[in-house]
């Protein structure tokens, strides 16, 4: 307690008797150890019938010349006691709370309550991530029919009837010249027809192949297609964009390589391989010991496709890519069987 400063203030007033009195008051304050006893001391000294109050009452009987000095002296005394009481009250309050805290116990090993929140499908999570990534780069996010005109799925993509490439995609046919889209690529032609160039866009969604299912094949899976249309577009541009995409998806530096791949709607066409992230390129079962994992087909948009999109290939160029989202989800979460994705099984759904 900073007794010194009060004391000097009182002593300066030049009355040794007050000094003794202050010592007594402050002593009582210091001895109070509960809120109630602090209150008792306060009443005893500063209350209506307190000792200071009675001293103040005597002021009126003093001659005017000493009244002023005596008044100042008593006022200093009052302030000093008030401050001491207040400080003591804070200390005692804190000490009492500390005592209560010392008596209080919980068991921190009790498990946390689980929140009743449901889970999003992992494909929804990946799609949202990819969409967010591309939207940040100024891409339109588009959505096109799953039951699609044969024209958009094939002819418009430079795959005319009887083209052997139609074999590579086991197609579900629908009446009236429609198919279940075998890839998200029909969106390329639709996007060119629907948007004003230059533009860049992605279109994710369900695609279908009429093939038997097993742990790594599904007749229903998810892809995302990307398209950039501008006045001058190069392979170097495409490569840079693909690396940006993959670094965004995998959240790390990636090493990629392009090798020739044939898709009628791109020329040149590529398969983009990713340096295997499991073994770092040394060779492991995941990459079939090649050090590379085939990840996405891409290429420069074939002029016939640009034409089908209603644009002049002498004026507009583009690149396009397709990325298998089902496969990406499986890589991300270590899912060993693609059929989990469409199984509607809560043992699966609740893991995400």
């Amino acid at each position, binding site marked *: 307690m900073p007794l010194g400063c009060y004391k000097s203030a009182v002593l300066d007033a030049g009355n040794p008797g007050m000094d003794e009195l202050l010592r007594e008051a402050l002593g009582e304050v210091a001895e109070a150890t509960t809120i109630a006893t602090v209150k008792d001391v306060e009443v005893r000294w500063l209350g209506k019938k307190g000792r200071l109050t009675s001293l103040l009452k005597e002021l009126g009987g003093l001659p005017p010349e000493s009244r002023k000095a005596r008044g100042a002296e008593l006022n200093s005394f009052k302030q000093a006691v008030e401050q001491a009481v207040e400080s003591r009250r804070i200390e005692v309050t804190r000490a009492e709370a500390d005592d209560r805290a010392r008596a209080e116990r919980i068991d921190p090993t009790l498990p946390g309550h689980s929140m009743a*929140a*449901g*889970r*999003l*499908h992992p494909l*929804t999570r990946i799609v949202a991530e990819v*969409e967010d990534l591309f*939207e940040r780069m*100024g891409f*339109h*996010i588009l959505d096109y*029919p*799953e*039951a*699609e*005109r044969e024209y958009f799925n094939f002819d418009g993509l430079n795959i005319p*009837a009887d083209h*052997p490439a139609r*074999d590579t995609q086991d*197609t*579900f046919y629908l*009446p*009236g*010249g*429609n198919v*279940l889209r075998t890839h998200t690529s029909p969106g390329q032609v639709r996007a060119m027809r629907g948007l004003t160039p230059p533009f860049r866009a992605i279109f994710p969604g369900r695609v279908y192949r*009429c093939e*038997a299912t097993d742990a790594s094949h599904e*007749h*229903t899976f998810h892809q995302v297609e990307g398209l950039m249309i*501008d006045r001058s*577009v*190069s*392979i*170097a*541009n495409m*490569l*840079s*964009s693909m*690396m*940006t995409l993959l670094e965004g998806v995998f959240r790390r530096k990636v090493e990629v*390589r*392009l*090798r*020739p791949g*044939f898709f009628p709607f791109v*020329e*040149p066409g590529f*398969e983009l391989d990713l340096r295997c992230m499991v073994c770092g390129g040394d060779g492991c079962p995941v990459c079939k010991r090649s050090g590379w994992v085939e990840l996405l087909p891409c290429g*420069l948009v*074939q*002029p016939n496709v640009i034409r089908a999109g209603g644009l002049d290939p002498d004026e507009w*160029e583009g690149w396009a890519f397709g990325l298998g989202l089902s496969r990406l989800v499986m890589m991300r979460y270590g899912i060993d069987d693609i059929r989990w*994705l*469409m199984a*509607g*099984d*809560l*043992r699966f759904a*609740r893991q995400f």
Partner: protein
Amino acid sequence: MKFSWNWLSDWVDLAGRPVSEVANRFTMTVAELEGVEAVGEGLRGVVVGRIATVGQHPNADKLKTVTVDLGGGRVVSGVSGAPNLVVGALVPVALPGVMLPGGNEVRATEIRGVPSGVVLLSEREMALSDDHSGVMILQPRDLSRRCFAGVTSDDASGLPFADGDDFPADLLASLPGKPLVDVVDVEDHVFEVDNKSLTHRPDLWGHHGLAREIAAMLGLPLKPLSDTFPVGPDAAIPVQVDSPIDCPRYMAMAYAGVSIAVSPFAVRHRLRAVGLRPINNVVDITNYVMMAVGQPVHSFDQRQLTGGQIVVRRALETEPFRLLDGRDLALSGEDLVIADALRPVALAGVMGGENSGIADDTVSVVLECATFNPSRVRRTAVRYGVRTDSSARFEKSLDPNLPPCAMAMFTSMLSAMSPGAHPTSRPADFASFSRQAVHIRLDPAFVSRRLGMDVPADRTRSILEHLGFLVSEEGGVFDVVVPSWRATKDVRIPEDLLEEIGRVIGYDQVPPLAPMAAVALVARLPRREMLATLRPVLAAECGLDEVMTYSFDSRALVTRLSFEPPDALALVNPISADAATMRTDLAPNLLGCVERNSARFPDAGIFEVGRVFRATVDTEGVPKQPYHLGVVAWRRLAKGRDESEALFRRVKGALLHLFGRLDLADAVIEDDFEGERRPWMHPNATVAVKVGATVVGSMGLVHPATMQALETPGVAVLAEIDIEALVVAPRKRRVFSPVPRFPSITNDLSLVAADDVRAGTLAAAIRLGGGPSLAAVELVAVYSGPPIPDGRRSLSFRMTFTAPDRTLSDVEVKEAIVRIVAHARAAGASMWGDEGSQES
């Protein structure tokens, strides 16, 4: 498709090149190799021996004693059971200590009392084929080109074999004792490439084309195919081609003096390595030519060609035809056939007929080397499900310049493999195709710009020339002539040339360069924005797990649900009879999820967002396919009204919360559903989901009959919402309302009413009675059971009164409550405690 290192080596010198390096280069510049397989491994210990003597085994009729000359004066003796032992024959042998493929070690033994120190090997014992009919006897044709140092064969097949039966004397003397693998090309590497990767490259469906590609890739010279051959004295077989569009080229030539036999090992070994089954010498040669040149050829038994002529025509409708493999077809007028004077003898480009194939006694042969229309071949192959090595090649658009090369190779090999066979006629050659070259104008600057790196013009030029393109320059722009083998459809435009240049340079040389793009705001699709909010709200805030199910209805499931989907979109070629139509509702598959999950998860809720499909099409002809939201929650074993209502309130609360988060105005979920009913809808517990005046979907208890069909005891609540309707539904703007300045007063009121009096009716009555000072009414408890009489229940409402301009007085509130009670009574409710008076 599989191809062989040794076979490639007929045309490009790969000596000293590591297989893995060539394989890797191929993957990076041509197409991905699926794998590289080593063939003929584990034979390093086998040597060539010359049978010196053959004698009868003293103790066994079927065994022979033999001595084998291993060269350098070394002779070993042994016992053999092989029936084809001939003195002087060169055979592979293994001495004691040699390990054979399959892990058997050769040991010195004694067989029926005679010691045996050598094993004479059959092909099967060396794992080279399944032939175990006798010891393998080497023929001149089997010898590797390494045996002929400095000798170049002029044989059109590229194989360095000697004609006739005999080995040159010097070889016969020098071969014994040499390791087999040094003398015969038993060791090979077989590359496999996915056919899909070569769809666009008709020139890569034979070893010569692949060798050309690899030569260009490695900068090596390529030995050309020969297209000249000896011809016979007779006139060419008459060939009539009805349509040059169907068949731009047809060559045929006749051969006599053929004797059908087994092919030499070397030919069989190569065919087997690339996955073909050896049959007999003539058929093997046709397959060999196809794999070498990339041009399918077909051989007919000349005896079977009635009238000695060939007609290339369309089949008659339903014309009967039996394929070589015995399948009977009724042909279509769209099929192209090869016919004689009377009947079809081959389905053009696909497969020959049983009526004209090579037989064991065939002596004269007609060879066909033709070019057929790719689409026609493909359609026929697809129509009958007969996809052959031949049809796979024709449908890629083959170079019409190949038939003479194929004919040259066939002629040369036939005379070697069937001594005495010779052409008897001149070749027929119907040719009606443009020999005009394809020209492409290529600006070298285009290459640099689109690749994104600087490529000097002379580099471009040299790459193209290596690949067989002819390049000339005029005013800084190249005129590029496409070689015939790339000109059928593969290379047409500058972008195609860009690919040729890029892949040879190597795309790893291209430095990534971020595109320059205009900064512009991209608009968001309203539906996507809605879905982006909807899913996380339903999951994170409403506690529902998201699932995805197939877009097909399960026939078995909808049948169990007694559901006949209206306007269902049927697949032409479903993957199974069970998945033959597209889903019209999300409900059936979600109910299927209930069935599958409820045993393990007795109390849960899920949702799905996805398209449903209609047979009805839009103006573009595309089937209608709106996005729907389906929600289903279930409680296994739940029974009674309370649990049903609790579950119902859970789903209703989720939807109302969702609509609130989507800022949809005036959502109401309590009016009876009056739309088209589905069999799973409960007759009196299904309500319309409305946003404003629009019905956007339905929600209700699942019909007990449905629960029974799903074998799920308990209750489920299902909602299905048309998201397209939500997207266009009116939104409310969020507006701040001033915080009340005066305190509000709350009062609870418990009403008792008959079971069929709805809470909504009572709440409406309370609101009506409460007037403007009643700010809110909330149902806080529902109770039935003692002391409430059967058939009635208690509903407790919490009412909040407030006024914007003053503190309400007790009197005012009391008056309001009196009015409220009056309205509640009018609506059929009584107060707690006055049950008696109500009853009387």
